[in-house]
């Protein structure tokens, strides 16, 4: 069970991801649709992992991640990027792509892949 902060400008999308991830009490999910409010939400919710859309109006995921890294209490929280720029068919099936240090999942998101990414990245940060 993990505290997941989900940041994506599409409300329908975040509702469904939240529904999937919190099914059967698996995870506690807090969704934010306005990237400008992401920082405050993170500071109050204290997530263990962050799922972050790359392209958003107002501020893109890269900038949001940079802001988190500037805050010592948020700097070590693992981030999983989501992007519509890459399609699932562009990634070898069953694998999680990397964007530098961070995992990058294509949209439409496969929830099984997302859960695996959460499990793997939570574990690695908790192991430190």
């Amino acid at each position, binding site marked *: 069970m993990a505290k997941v902060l989900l940041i994506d400008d599409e409300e329908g999308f975040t509702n*469904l991801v939240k529904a999937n991830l919190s099914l059967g009490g698996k995870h506690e999910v807090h969704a934010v649709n306005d990237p400008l409010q992401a920082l405050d939400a993170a500071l109050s919710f204290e997530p263990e992992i962050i799922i972050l859309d790359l392209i958003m109006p107002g501020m893109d995921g890269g900038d949001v991640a940079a802001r988190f890294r500037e805050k010592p209490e948020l700097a070590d929280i693992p981030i999983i990027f989501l992007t*519509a720029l890459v399609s699932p068919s562009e990634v070898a099936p069953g694998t999680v792509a990397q964007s530098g240090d961070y995992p990058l999942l294509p949209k439409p998101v496969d*929830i099984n892949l997302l859960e695996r990414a959460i499990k793997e990245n939570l574990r690695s940060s908790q192991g430190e």
Partner: protein
Amino acid sequence: MEDGSKTQAFRRDAERGIEAVVQRLRGQEKFTDTILDNLPLALFCKNADDGYRFVLWNKRQEDITGITREEAIGHTDSELFSSQAAKYFREIDEGVINSGRSLEIPEEKISSPTVGKIWLRTFKCPITGPDGTQLLLGVSEDITSHIKDRERLHRTSKEIESLELQLIQAEKLESIGRLAAGVAHEVKNPLACLMLGAQYLERALEDPSDDVKNVIEEMKNAVARGEQIVRGLVDFSSLRQLQVEPIDPQTWLDRAIGFVRHECIRASVRIRCDYQHQGALAAVDSAKMEQVLVNLLTNSIHALELVEDRADRSLEVTTCVCELVEAPPDEGDRSGERVRKGDHVVRIEIRDSGPGFPPDKLSVIFDPFFTTKPTGKGTGLGMSVARKIIALHGGMIEIRNRKRGGAVVALSLKVATEFEDTPVSS
């Protein structure tokens, strides 16, 4: 003076007088000849009373026909030109003489035994010679260069027309592309939501019936298909910048084959590779080329699934370096330098033992949205994207059916310059 010496003196004067007249006439004749030989027009004259033999043949006529005055004078058309040409000349000559009217032939093509094919504008008229003979006078102007200019102009205007059409087509495709990119982006999110919804139902329903499970599976498949079409549209509209570097084709060929390996295993397709390009490099955007190969291999695999006997499903990927025998057809996509006949190319061939392409469809195979696959199995965009990528690389893609069944897709890519000495295989 005696009568005898008077007569002698008279005779001497007369002879001198006649001599002077003859000299004057000779001088005039020479003058006339000089004029005739310096005319920029070809002049000839035939004696209609003597079998239309040539009695006049000026310098320009010599130049145009390549036949000298000595060869022509006293001879007929049939002795100097082909029988077909001689017949043609005689018909016209007789017409002019019989009608007593002159004739202008604005264009006639003449084949001279020495000079080859030339175009003339000819004027023929009946005249009477000094001794009353019926003569045919001919004057010809060489208009070959004028005709060639006219043909060139015609070709150029046809080319311009064709280019204009291509430009219009390109603009249409460009705006379709932009529209497609916009639609694709907008559609991605609803697709993502549908996928998540289907997955949620899958996990949330306790003990769902088989029917429910099937419905959910169908929904997920539908989303995957929608996503593929979106991807195809985005690809089609966004091919612009290539990141080109000289690279051994084996790298991206192997990657592409690795990518489809699961599909091959699932469909019982045997893949065999035979790389004979001996490390020759081709300057390509390897990510894009990999995409093309995955596309072509996937097409072949789908075609092979139609082969009943699983043991007969084979796929062969071969490479070699060779000289391009045939130039690519004019496709109007001149974003780069196309390969030309005689260029050294790396030739990549994908051969399958499937049913081959319907012959009547071979010409439209690269059209966007053309597909022979049943609905749900392919978007019809793959080949047009593949062709666009190859064209952007200045390469060539050919498709044909094999004699013994199945299809061959051949890609030809220019060998990177520093490797032009790689031995060429036959």
